[in-house]
């Protein structure tokens, strides 16, 4: 019998610690597949965030480092500038990337660092129990918006992809999601392209992955994916937001 599918080499055997129904596991796998397919595992250095994906270094089977909360783009800059031959990516959640790390995100993008950023947007702080994130939707109930996010009180969801598209330093930005198989396939294509860009020296690539967080959203996994499709994507529409590499 021939083996036609197996776990990517870029993933370790460790069981994931993510909640049941969480999107991180899918996104990890897509990254691992892309890294394998491009044959770059042995020269990849990943920067893990503070947040749910802080444990990424237990799952990825290549070199990884931790970074203080919000600082992965700065850490990645330090790595890439001194190791231009390595493939460097950050994996960050919405609190890490769009709240405490906003300055690092914008300036790393504006410098056009030749790195790849995987931005997991699940509209809340998952690790700490579901507080409001910069990307929390209007009206969304979280641990710290018990009456729903009110723009007069909490402002509006930050659309980081659109924000970064305005910067000349960014080369490729796409928003994808992973709630069903066709979208997972599209997400894989985008992630692989974002790494391919770095291999080719095209510059800064940014993939925003709209992900589901059933436990902190207080939903079943099925309700969560339905909410992504019917509500979440209305505020964060999918598609290529910028591509200057064509």
């Amino acid at each position, binding site marked *: 019998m021939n083996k036609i599918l197996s776990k990517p080499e870029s993933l370790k055997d460790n069981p994931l610690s993510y909640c049941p129904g969480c999107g991180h596991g899918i996104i990890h796998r897509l990254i691992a597949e892309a890294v394998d397919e491009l044959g770059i595992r042995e020269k990849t250095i990943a920067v893990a965030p503070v947040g749910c994906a802080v444990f990424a270094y237990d799952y990825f089977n290549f070199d990884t480092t*931790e970074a203080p909360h919000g600082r992965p783009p*700065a850490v990645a800059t330090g790595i890439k500038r001194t190791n231009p031959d390595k493939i460097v990516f950050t994996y960050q959640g919405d609190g890490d990337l769009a709240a405490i790390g906003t300055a*690092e995100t914008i300036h790393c993008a504006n410098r056009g660092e030749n790195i790849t950023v995987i931005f997991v947007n699940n509209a809340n702080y998952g690790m700490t129990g579901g507080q409001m994130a910069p990307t929390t939707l209007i009206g969304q109930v979280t641990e710290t918006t018990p009456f729903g996010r009110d723009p007069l009180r909490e402002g509006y969801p930050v659309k980081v992809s659109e924000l970064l598209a305005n910067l000349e330093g960014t080369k490729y930005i796409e928003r994808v999601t992973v709630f069903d198989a066709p979208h997972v396939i599209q997400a894989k294509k985008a992630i692989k392209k974002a790494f391919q860009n770095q291999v080719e020296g095209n510059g800064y690539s940014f993939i925003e992955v709209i992900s589901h967080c059933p436990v902190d959203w207080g939903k079943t996994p099925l309700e969560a994916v339905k909410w992504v499709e019917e509500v979440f994507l209305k505020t964060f529409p999918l598609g290529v937001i910028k591509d200057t590499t064509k």
Partner: protein
Amino acid sequence: MAKKLVKGNIALCEGALAAGLDAYFGYPITPQNEVPAYMSNKMVSLGKAFVQAESELAAANMVLGACATGKRAMTSSSSPGISLKQEALSYMAGMEIPGVIVNVQRGGPGLGNIAGSQADYFQAVKGGGHGDYHLIVFAPNCAQEMYEITYESFDIAEKYRNPVMLLCDGIVGQMMEPVDFNKEQKTSFAKKEWCLDGCKGREPRSIKSLLMADGVLEQHNLDLQKKYELIRKNEARAELYQVEDAEIIIVSYGISSRISKNAIKAARANGIKAGMIRPVTLWPFPTEAIKKYAKPAVKFLSVELCLGQMVEDVRLAVNGVSSVDFLGRAGGGIVSDKDVLNKIMELKK
């Protein structure tokens, strides 16, 4: 080689370059602006990395990233900027990432002023960031030492996998002095078996400070303490100046040690046996050197450009055997050699 007249801040840059610096990351703040300006030219010309970061936080974290890959990187700043870098310093200590951080101190607290100061002693040697850790802290007192100690600090940081801080002050940074650039350019470096350089032909590595499993973080802290103990044993340094017969021993570092030395010469000319122990490392503090000279008949005097920080460590070292007095000024005020001499005279009475 003939000596060259340069500012302390430039001597510092040359020391880092001779040590094989791969990357400099900085942010403008007075009185250390010569450093990023000089490095922006040198590093780019040498084909090495230079980034003017968006913030002090980012600059420090760029150092963290570069040094995690085994490269030599540094950042420099002054007091308010160093406060912002404490986050990365705590992580680097926890993750055991070497790196060199320079503080050309200015007056504080808050935005303070841009005059020379020594008010960041506590921050540098007692922690600064969160957690149970130590930086290795050097206190150069002249341009020559800005060059030599910077040169050496990269080796020491890597030897112990621990961040090194150079605690300078605005005066030593800004003053021009002749410097003998006597160090050889470093080109070969010890292989680092821990760094992130891609997992070709080996198991992947990860560098982290998050240790959640039961007891693991405590063990990590115990291991760090063992390392700190080794550093205490190996690296404490002090310059002794006329201490053998001294009845009054000044303890002073950085620019105030230069001022104190003049006062000691004047005191000796007046028949007063004064001397000085100058800590070259502030952490580890040269406790043993001080202890050795602590006798009931000897009076100690800590001279600092702040209102009394190092004096606490002098008291701990002396441990009640000698009296310990203090002289200092704050907010950019400079203690004069006359002030120090008057204090010596007063102690002599």
